[in-house]
């Protein structure tokens, strides 16, 4: 059985990519940013996932205003880097995992998340910058990647709650895949920033830090943040943070925060980064899950290893409108 072992969130500022490409990472301005990812690279090198699911957004590269899919899952074998106006970034072609991607697509659509399947797509800095930050700049990326592009450019993006629930559906999809694969999921974008209009340059560290805190300990609270609040508090483009909630939804409720980094600014943006690991191994076999299933309608919290089964039952109730 495949399983999600950890989640990573990271900003995807284009200027970070340019600093890597132009070999400016040792300059003081950029060193402050890159030094925050040294431990993360070590963690990733040790973790060695078999597959990475990268939730990101396209910035008028693969999708113009002609077609705007809310959720688009990359099911191709390869995703070349996009030319964003200065030639494609000098990063390796991203290798996909078409089998797992097709499985996820089928599973989440039947789970009522009507995402778009993309069999040909170029990927921009939104995807490749976080990969550089976690994997460095290797000749080839160390694992296959399934891109999940989320519309956060045309208002309204999906709600934080919808994103969180999609994360849960992705987890169910991954866990129903027969091959033993260790999967890491990335949520990218954010944190607070606004790059458009007279209010450009907005940064709200207080909001960002509270978001990081709650991402670890109370993500459901974050799913109640309305779009207006994201835009008002974290800037028009800060709304990208809904993508982090897909990553968080795909993890256990109770997780371990392994690492965190926050700095202001990189270009126009607050850079936030966090690594969250699932604490325990998933229960083996269906029997354990069935045994732990709480009585329908019960809202009593279930302790310890019963939590996951409880979360599932809870989710079913949401879909049936019982909550």
């Amino acid at each position: 059985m495949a399983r999600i072992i950890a989640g990573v969130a990271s900003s995807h500022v284009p200027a970070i990519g340019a600093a890597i490409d132009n070999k400016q990472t040792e300059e003081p301005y950029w060193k402050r940013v890159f030094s925050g990812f040294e431990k993360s690279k070590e963690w990733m090198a040790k973790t060695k996932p078999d597959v990475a699911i990268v939730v990101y957004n396209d910035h008028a590269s693969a999708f113009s205003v002609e077609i705007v899919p809310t959720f688009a899952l990359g099911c191709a074998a390869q995703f070349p880097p996009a030319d964003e106006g200065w030639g494609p970034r000098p990063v390796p072609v991203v290798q996909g995992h078409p089998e797992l991607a097709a499985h996820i697509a089928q599973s989440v659509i039947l789970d009522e998340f009507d995402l778009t399947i993309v069999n040909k797509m170029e990927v921009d800095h939104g995807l490749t910058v976080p990969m550089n930050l976690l994997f460095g700049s290797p000749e080839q990326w160390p694992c296959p990647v399934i891109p999940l592009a989320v519309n956060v450019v045309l208002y309204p993006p999906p709600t934080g709650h919808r994103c969180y629930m999609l994360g849960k559906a992705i987890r169910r999809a991954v866990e129903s895949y027969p091959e033993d694969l260790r999967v890491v999921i990335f949520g990218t974008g954010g944190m607070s920033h606004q790059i458009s209009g007279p209010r450009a340059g907005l940064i709200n560290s207080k909001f960002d830090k509270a978001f990081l805190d709650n991402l670890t300990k109370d993500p459901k609270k974050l799913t109640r943040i309305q779009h207006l609040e994201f835009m008002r508090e974290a800037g028009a483009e800060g709304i990208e943070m809904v993508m982090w909630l897909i990553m968080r939804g795909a993890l256990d409720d109770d997780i371990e925060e392994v690492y965190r980094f926050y700095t202001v600014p990189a270009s126009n943006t607050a850079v936030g980064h966090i690594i969250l690991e699932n604490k325990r191994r998933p229960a083996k076999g269906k029997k354990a899950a069935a045994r732990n299933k709480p009585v329908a309608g019960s809202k009593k919290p279930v302790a310890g290893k019963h939590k996951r089964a409880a979360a599932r039952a809870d989710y079913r109730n949401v879909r049936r409108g019982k909550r």
Partner: protein
Amino acid sequence: MAREPHDYDDIPGTFVFDAEKSRQGYGINMFCMSLMKDANRREFKANEAEYLKKFPLTPPQTQAILKRDYNRMLELGGNIYFTAKLGATDGHSFRHLAAVMTGSSQEDYAAMMLAGGRSVEGNRSKSGKAKPAAAAKSKPKSKRVSKSRSQRG
């Protein structure tokens, strides 16, 4: 028909690229998208007004593009990720665009960012009614979470 009012109209200095703006600015954004190709960039630079005739633009939209009035482009339905391609075609950095949009010099804008960016204090609301956010605050009251589950209905 007058534009439908939205809650986000209250955010100062911000043009939310919503469905109505997207409809209105389709020509601006498709023009900007065309600048991803070098041949198009050259054709545009050779005769800007002539090149713009290829796109469904209103006269104010055409004027905003020719004048590089980036806020006006956003107001008329442009989106920053698209209009940034026009900036790149002109050889301008994003900082240049940010300075133009915020009405400051590039140096002042860069200094503001280095000092921690533009504060949200005083920049939340045109009406002044908006209070600091509640939902993102830490110190969760975990007992309450389960009680408010009906919020999504």
